[in-house]
């Protein structure tokens, strides 16, 4: 168990004469016993980053250190790192017991009877004791997943790496394993890096999440901080389902002018924006209130276009100007499941000023994030 440190780690793939930068100058520090979730869209470099930590890919530049020891050139088999693969990668010709003891036999000098003892204990911990003598082909997907997990746990490595380990499970089992993995990691206290593209896993599992896009680290922070105080437009749009509404706006005399609306902002908010005038206004669907009648300059007349009932909540697609047809700017709002809004009706959408985010349109950087005065119970640190 140890701190894992990435310092300006970069990976460049050569494709003929082209250079493809898969991971670009990523620096991060994962504390002893921390659960870090790395999340991002497909092809963002998150798996490459994990494979570099595992030693399965070489590091083009930068340093990777584990417990203050640089391990750039240490071979995979000498790193004392265990990895759980998406495909589980079990050894098909070995029983579950042999699968789990393989790592200990290869990497340690522990005598056979002790190894068997450790395998049995881990089997009990994961509830797979009765499966130990079966072959992987005789197990269900969920059971194979447990064995893959057990194979990593029994080695008691310094770092766990997990590459989308739950993505081959059905939704129910995935939710169940999510909680169980968290509990296990808590009990074992092993530094864990968990790669996923599923934002539910990202939000719920990690102590911190690292968001990657195009090989660059966008933000690394607690899940709630990333959600409420995104560093840039990418993070704001990536986290949250349905995702944040964005509108291109221009700042003029304290008013944000968009194609379909004008949104006056207070001097406090304006102070955060500096000289930038080409901006993007962001608002999360759940922060939009649907009200009966307009009462202020943050209320806008809209028409309900489509409504998607989810049971516990409704996702409502609102149009500012229904006459604009296809080009009409849409606003997505989430309301609770009992609010009935018929399609085609006119409603007033209230966009509270304390919930808005404002981004620099050129760089995507967040200039102003929502205030959290009304949410002091949320512990962001």
């Amino acid at each position, binding site marked *: 168990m140890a701190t894992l440190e990435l310092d300006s780690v970069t990976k460049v793939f050569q494709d003929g004469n082209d250079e493809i930068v898969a991971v670009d100058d990523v620096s991060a520090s994962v504390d002893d016993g921390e659960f870090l979730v790395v999340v991002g869209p497909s092809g963002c470099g998150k798996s490459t980053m994990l494979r570099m930590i595992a030693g399965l890919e070489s590091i083009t530049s930068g340093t990777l250190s584990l417990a203050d020891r640089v391990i750039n050139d240490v071979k995979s088999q000498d790193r004392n790192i265990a990895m759980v693969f998406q495909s589980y990668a079990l050894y098909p*010709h070995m029983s579950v017991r042999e699968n789990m003891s393989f790592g200990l036999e290869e990497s340690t000098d522990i005598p056979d009877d002790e190894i068997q003892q450790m395998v049995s204990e881990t089997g009990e911990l994961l509830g797979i004791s009765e499966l130990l003598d079966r072959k992987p082909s005789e197990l269900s997907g969920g059971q194979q997943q447990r064995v893959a997990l057990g194979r990593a746990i029994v080695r008691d490595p310094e770092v766990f790496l997990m590459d989308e380990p739950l993505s081959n499970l059905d939704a129910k089992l995935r939710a169940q394993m999510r909680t169980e993995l968290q509990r296990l990691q808590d009990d074992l206290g092993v530094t864990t890096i968990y790669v996923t593209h599923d934002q539910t896993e990202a939000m719920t599992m990690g102590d911190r999440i690292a968001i990657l896009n195009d090989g660059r680290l966008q933000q690394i922070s607690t899940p709630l901080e990333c959600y409420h105080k995104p560093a840039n437009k990418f993070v704001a749009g990536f986290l949250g389902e349905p995702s944040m509404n964005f509108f291109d706006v221009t700042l003029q005399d304290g008013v944000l002018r968009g194609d379909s609306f004008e949104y006056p902002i207070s001097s406090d908010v304006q102070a955060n924006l500096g000289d930038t005038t080409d901006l993007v206004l962001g608002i999360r669907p759940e922060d939009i209130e649907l009200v009966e009648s307009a009462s202020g300059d943050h209320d806008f007349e809209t028409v309900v276009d489509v409504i998607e009932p989810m049971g516990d909540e409704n996702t409502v697609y609102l149009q500012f100007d229904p006459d604009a047809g296809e080009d009409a700017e849409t606003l997505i709002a989430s309301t609770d499941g009992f609010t009935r809004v018929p399609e085609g009706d006119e409603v007033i959408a209230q966009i509270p000023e304390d919930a808005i985010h404002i981004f620099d349109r050129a760089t995507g950087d967040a200039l102003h994030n929502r205030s959290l005065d009304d949410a002091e119970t949320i512990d962001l640190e």
Partner: protein
Amino acid sequence: MSDTESRTDGDAAVTARIRQNLEQTTVEDVGLYVVLLVMAAFYLVPIESGLVTSFKTGTAVIETAPFAPPGPSGFTLAKWQAAVDALLRGMGNSLLYAVPATVISAVVGSLMAYGLTIPNWKQAYKAPLLAIIIAGIFIPYQAVLVPLTQFWSQWVELTSLLSFVWALGIPNDYAGIIELIVTHVAYGIPMCTLLFRTYYTNLSEEMIESARLDGASLRRVYRRIVLPLSGPMFAVVLIYQFTQIWNDLLFTLVLVATESSPAAPVVLILAGLGSSLEGQDFALRMAGAFLAALPTLAVYIFFGDEFAEGVAA
């Protein structure tokens, strides 16, 4: 009572099914089966003829049709007895080089293919090596006959190099057996490597990576993961190589030459078996051919299941 009833029900169902099947049989179906039967007969008649001929006395061979059974008066096991007497020595000699050559070329091929696929060595080193190996498959036997005799008679003279072995009382003709082993291994490696390589490129990459992360060195990954998973491909390669080497006449002619040699392989003896100035002894030739083919047949039966699995892979 319900028992009998259900049985009659069952019978009725079966009859109904048969009737239904018959009704659905078309002229095309009938034609297909006729063609298949004719083809099966076409391929099986020579084998059947050979087998019945091998049990016939000299007169029965002349008096009965080739594919007709010998009948009680024309039946004899003498030809088989003669074939066993003549060929047993040769079969021993053939096994002496066919088995080691098969095993060595399979093992070397497997190791070579492992090196060319699993370790992440630079493609710049792997590709030329693979090209050379593949080129080896296409060298015809005829092209190497002269260099081969040159090599074994002038450069590497085993008869003089291994003089201490012959001093033990082993006839120095057995140098030919060692030459056959080395030659067949060299000739078999390219094909074996190619077969194993195809198999290894299909192994799960994540599984190998997982083993590396589990602390296994390259050597241990081969020993504990790749080799145990190679069973089906070993069956394919062993059958292929064994049949190839056992049946090869060209190299044995060049390297051992005479059937009177104590080290003569079965193919050399078989070539002259049953032919003399008085004419051809067909029954003896057939019995000899079947006897000589038995080991290759045994290999197929022995590794049949793995072979099917390997071919499917």
